């Protein structure tokens, strides 16, 4: 059963890692969809 639990934990780790990595690579929806000239106050 340990392999199963490790597998499930790995799913969560990979998901968070994928989100972080894609964001760092500029593949976030914000990076892809927003214009640098858009009017944002933040």
């Amino acid at each position, binding site marked *: *059963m*340990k*392999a*199963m639990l*490790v*597998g*499930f934990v*790995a*799913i969560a780790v*990979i*998901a*968070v890692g*994928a*989100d972080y990595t894609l964001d760092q690579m500029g*593949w976030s929806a914000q990076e*892809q*969809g*927003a*214009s640098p*000239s*858009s*009017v944002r106050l933040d």
Partner: protein
Amino acid sequence: MRDIRIFLLGCIMAGLAFVFLATWLTSGPANAQDAATPPAEVEIDRSATGGATTLEDILRRQQGLASDNDYRAGELGNPDAAAGITDQLGTLGGASDPDLWRGMRFNAADISTQVRGPASTVLIQDRGMWWLQFREGPLLVYGGYLLLGTLAALAVFFLLRGRVRIDGAKTGRRIERFKNVERFGHWLLAGSFIVLGITGLVSLMGRKFLIPVMGHDSYAWIAGASKWVHNNVSWAFMLALVMIFVMWVVHNFPDRTDLKWLAKGGGLFGGGHPPAKKFNAGQKLIFWSTIVLGASISVSGISLLFPFELPLFAKTFAILNTTGLPEMFGFGILPETMTLHEEMQYAQLWHAIVSFVLMAIILAHIYIGSVGMEGAFDAMGSGMVEEQWAKEHHSLWVAEVKEREGKAPSGATPAE
């Protein structure tokens, strides 16, 4: 014995999938073309309106019939011929509101936006209605029936057949069936697939079934979370698919024992347990279904993950058309040019249809690996299986293991 049932269920589901695909291919592209090109026999006389929309045009649209849009697609007004600003209608600048909406609908308006992306200036996707109707209609209905039908079939089978027990006396000895890394890969694939299946169903069916129950606000949060999980867990699924393929492909090439196994119906109709190696023919069918369908789901999923970056279908349809197969099967010539949104719509449908088929197959796999058969779960639980179970279901594999260990088990089916 156990996997003949998976095989039979797989046959039924493959049949359903074929009907499903046939429905899609005959309804989808045909409608998409209808929206742009009217049937040749429909010739509407517009002389009475000076070439503008007639009552017949309006009635045909209201009845959902194919209508000709070419005569009005270019009617976008003429700013150069605008009336003077002080004249009647002069403030419109030579283009009326209908002219403006036509420009948006037929993607001819001069749209400027701060949003980047290849399709950001498309405000109305004129040829997407068939996709929307198919997604909210047949895809949801037939997909739901496929899953519910599979669950019902498994429940009936369980009631009729009961749990498949180990026939012989248990030896108390256990042999290793799957190593840690194999089980890790399996559960990485299985866990991610279940999560992807649930979140995918939430995305597809939530508007229909969850909003009436929980309301828009609660569903909005669930839909957003579901999308994040679906997008990011997909990488675990793809990684696990590669792992599984690399680890088990060598055991899953078809051979003579599969023919014998299939000829005996996996033992379902009596005659004892047919000999099998590490994977019997039923399991090989599950393996290749997972690899082929999983790869197809992954490719269409990547296309959806990076919108408009990886269009797949126009090129695929062009290749299919060169083979002549679509026409041979009565689907006509498939569309070879499509807008970026249409590419995403085809990818979404394909992603969902193939996922439904794989989900149905995996439901049967989950059944036989858990409640359906005594001793089966141990293979992926602890990795150690009862020797008697192994002899009954994978006799040739047991013989190989024993041969490697240097001692032959008593009563094992000899290896061929």
